[in-house]
């Protein structure tokens, strides 16, 4: 098409750069308004507290890039915390084995959803919505109580603070960042990653070009399931408990993070690294509100909505401007 195609196509990096720029502005504004906001530890806390969200958002990026959606991730996260807690506390399994098994369960769960989506040509939204109910429901079947984890390995992972200067970072945050790095590599430097983009661009064409669409789609959802389970493990480290009500609505946060990071929900356009920006934006908004400390519950919601609004609108307007040039 000779006319200017959808803005994001004409300068792929542009939106992402704007997002980063706006994030910096957001943090700067916070620093100016609240003393102590711009300390290194607060920045690290952003990563520590949102490690699980970042992991989920990475998986979600793959799914969204392929033109799908995965609503089950929050529930799979909760289910994983539950499974971990149950296996550790009731069966007293070796923690490493527990982690491996729960990651495997999450992966299989995701793959099963992917298979349903692909082979029965079902809509991702509905399949993963049912998957969301199922995973949540399974939590309650294991136990409706929360289960506290006191396994020494988990406790150590929870309480270890890796010092950086006079600040610290948690192992969970490092795992999340490592996963992000791997995911970026996979998305941009491996045929599998490119197949994801191709499927997201046009599934029919991808099929006609001879790509293994079936395998790719099942793998994408399996990966998302894996990420959700890994996030669950990180969450177990973080909270040291398994609970069916953990991480409610996290799927929406993850989707929002990915979309704010510049990825198009219709698939095919965006960067996995955008997940990090998106997560940091959401995290900074929350931190800002916590530092402010005067907002009532409803003002909290309104302000989150308002900041999201400003952010999205500025991002959009700047993108349009930039592309006109």
């Amino acid at each position, binding site marked *: *098409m000779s006319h200017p195609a959808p803005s994001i196509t004409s300068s792929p990096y542009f939106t992402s750069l704007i997002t980063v720029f706006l994030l910096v502005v957001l943090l700067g504004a916070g620093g100016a308004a609240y003393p102590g906001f711009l300390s290194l530890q607060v920045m690290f806390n952003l990563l520590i507290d949102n490690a699980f969200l970042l992991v989920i958002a990475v998986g979600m990026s793959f799914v969204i890039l392929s033109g799908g959606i995965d609503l089950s991730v929050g529930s799979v996260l909760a289910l994983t915390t539950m499974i971990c807690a149950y296996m550790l506390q009731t069966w007293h399994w070796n923690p490493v084995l527990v982690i491996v098994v729960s990651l495997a369960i999450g992966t299989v769960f995701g793959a099963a959803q992917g298979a349903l989506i692909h082979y029965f040509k079902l809509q991702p939204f509905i399949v993963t919505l049912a998957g969301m109910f199922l995973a949540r429901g399974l939590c309650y079947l294991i136990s409706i109580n929360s289960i506290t984890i006191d396994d020494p390995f988990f406790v150590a992972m929870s309480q270890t603070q890796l010092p950086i200067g006079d600040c610290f970072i948690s192992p969970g945050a490092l795992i999340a960042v490592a996963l992000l790095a791997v995911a970026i590599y996979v998305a941009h430097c491996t045929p599998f990653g*490119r197949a994801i983009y191709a499927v997201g661009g*046009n599934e029919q064409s991808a099929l006609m070009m001879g790509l293994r669409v079936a395998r790719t789609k099942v793998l994408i959802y399996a990966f998302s399931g894996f990420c959700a389970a890994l996030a669950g493990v990180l969450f177990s480290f973080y909270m040291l408990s398994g609970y069916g009500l953990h991480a409610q609505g996290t799927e929406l946060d993850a989707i929002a993070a990915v979309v704010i990071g510049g990825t198009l929900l219709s698939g095919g356009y965006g960067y996995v690294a955008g997940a990090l920006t998106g997560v940091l934006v959401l995290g900074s908004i929350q931190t800002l509100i916590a530092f402010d400390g005067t907002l009532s519950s409803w003002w909290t919601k309104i302000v989150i909505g308002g900041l999201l609004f400003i952010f999205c609108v500025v991002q959009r307007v700047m993108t349009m401007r930039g592309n006109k040039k």
Partner: protein
Amino acid sequence: MTTNLSAPVLELRGISKAFTGVQALNGVSLNLYPGEVHTLMGQNGAGKSTLIKVLTGVYTPDSGEIVLAGRSIQPQSTLDAQNLGISTVYQEVNLCPNLSVAENIFIGRYPRKLGRIDWAGMARQASELLERMQIRIDVTLPLAHYPLAIQQMVAISRSLLVSAKVLILDEPTSSLDEKEVDLLFSVLRGLREQGMAILFVTHFLDQTYAISDRITVMRNGEREGEYLVGDLSRVDLVNKMVGAVATGEAPATAVETPSEGTGQSRFQSFLRAVGLGRKGALQPMDLEIRQGELLGLAGLLGSGRTEAARLLFGADKADTGTITIEGKACNFASPRDAIGAGIGFCSEDRKHEGAILDLSVRENLILALQARMGIMRAIPLKRQQQLAEEYVKALGIKTASIETPIGSLSGGNQQKVLLARWLVTDPKLLILDEPTRGIDVRAKQEIMDYVAALCKKGMSILFISSELPEVLRVSDRIVVMRDRKQGGEYPRGALDETSVLHVIAAGDTHVS
């Protein structure tokens, strides 16, 4: 030339395929020999594309056998077919618009370096590959940046990359102009020398005779016959496609004389564009379209014809210039405004900018008319059906019924429906961007006659086509575009094919 002594590399035996309501293929057989270019011809909806899709695993045949190099095969997917050594370019461009041009060529078989994709190497190879077709573009930009013709070349390049035994090209030349076609043919000839078997679909008789060794003619889902090129005259070929008794005259050579050059003065100015331009797309140009005139827009690929048309129609916003219609200044913010002023625009990219695939023929056909009438004044169903039936008949659209989704029509028939969409609105000015793309010889003739008749009744037409002879034949006046700007304006008869090419190539040479 083919040696019939060698065994066929690919044999189709009695292939049948039915869709709901249509027997698309009925016991079709075909032999494809190594080292030949085999052209498949037939009217729109004859079953050519379906045959190719059956052959490459997109559809499963209801009955029949596919034999490749003596072995019976049942490809389940395009991937299967590729692995078996069958490389295909389908009729509708099947590439990913979000990926870069280079990726579209290489996806599925990336050059690797230390296990990871070698981006630089890939871009280099892609550029080289396209350069062989004399296309010099930035291969790292997304495919969606480029016009359809470029996309088609990319699809072809992609298919050439595989070391295949069989290469199938379904109407690869439908939006290419002569230069590109020549380049493509020289590549194909090279491949033929190397013993590749090439199955080629086109509606252009010239191209058929220029490249084929053998022709299979299809009619109504059946094989009419298989001929050596030398044994079949053009007239015979057309008659066999159409299924009529020989009349002794090939339709393609019939010359229509729309209006005499002397009648110029009877045209009144309808639309006048002054300094119309858009940064990066079209340099400011002047254009006048007169009432009842068929104005041809000639030029090479990427010369800016489509862009000019889109600006006139308000599909893109012009940075500079003014448009006046019948003396009144107009400012089109959207296609809707242009339609309100009596303009219609049939886009060259039917898959992305024309057809609403899941909707029926009827709904597609009345869409623009309904849009113009507004949302509240729904056209009564009876009237819709009547209009649809009328145009299906007038343009010879082959469809099971007017309620069939347009997506299940053959490519050429979709094109006719989209043309009809604009004809029903009875516009004062109709902009046709490659309107006959993918339409068979006979129908093309009929459509152009139809259009010319409308012109006589006072409709203005802006006609864009990559087929120079066609432009020359039907236009009252020709504007030549070059490098995204106007390269001269010529009255009917002032140019012939060579002189146009000359103008396009050399600039403003004045031809008497």
